[in-house]
């Protein structure tokens, strides 16, 4: 196990790459979900306003 984490002496180069890949994937998920949720909220607000104006 220790040998695996040591990556043949290249641990300081290999692991940050995979950590950054994880961070980039996580950022993508977080930011896409946030963007979608915000767009839904805006659309719902616009619809509610249109409804109240129609009444």
């Amino acid at each position, binding site marked *: 196990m220790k040998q695996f984490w040591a990556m043949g002496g290249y641990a300081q180069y290999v692991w940050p790459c995979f950590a950054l890949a994880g961070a*980039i994937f996580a950022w993508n*998920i977080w930011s896409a*979900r946030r963007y979608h949720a915000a767009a839904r909220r805006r659309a719902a607000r616009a619809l509610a306003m249109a409804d109240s104006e129609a009444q």
Partner: protein
Amino acid sequence: MWTWFYKLASPPSVYNTAAALLPWFTAFAALTLSYGLVGGLVFAPPDYQQGDAFRIIYVHVPSAWMSEFSYSLMAVAGAIGLIWRIKIGHAVAAATAPIGASFTVLALVTGSMWGRPMWGTYWAWDPRLTSELILLFLYFGVMSLRSAYEDGSRGDRAAALLSIVGVVNIPIIHFSVVWWNSLHQAATVAKFGKPDMALSMLWPLLSMFLGFMLFFGAMLCLRLQGEILNRERQSAWVRDAVRT
């Protein structure tokens, strides 16, 4: 034939397709990425020259490839929006840009981390590295140009134009290692004939490729839905989409 195409490219149809595809892309991305990671980090043997440092390939090459693929998709989608005035083209282009830019950052940083032990430097003004950096600036340029306009449709057109002009950089990135003397190695997998790689190393890499593609697909579906909602707020069909 065109009526069918326009119907397929209509915002509600694309919105529903994206919503339906999202769980499938996510599930298969998780599967292929897991296989690629375990295969690449655990089961693939160390390289005979680079030792375990070669394992960076499993994130570097797929992200670099995706950075070029996303840019090409963004330019084609922008061109479709610009030439045929199909609105969904601009929405796809806008949704693709941040995902592509994030993959470009990943490709640049992992390349730099790989360069240090192999070339002795984090960075060199090498044709491949420089053209990839220009790609990142192009992404930033396209994104800021789109948001610089108050009028969304003018921003779309300007961003589409810039992304089409920037496409010239894609073959430059790809062939830079052939055209000029480069520190960067030439293609190992994407070339005619047999790839220069053992199968135990190649399968996890192909799985990571597929995983990156599927993940990109999932993120595009999610962002595209948001993009369409932002653009179609006034349309009647949005009422059903938001309420469900």
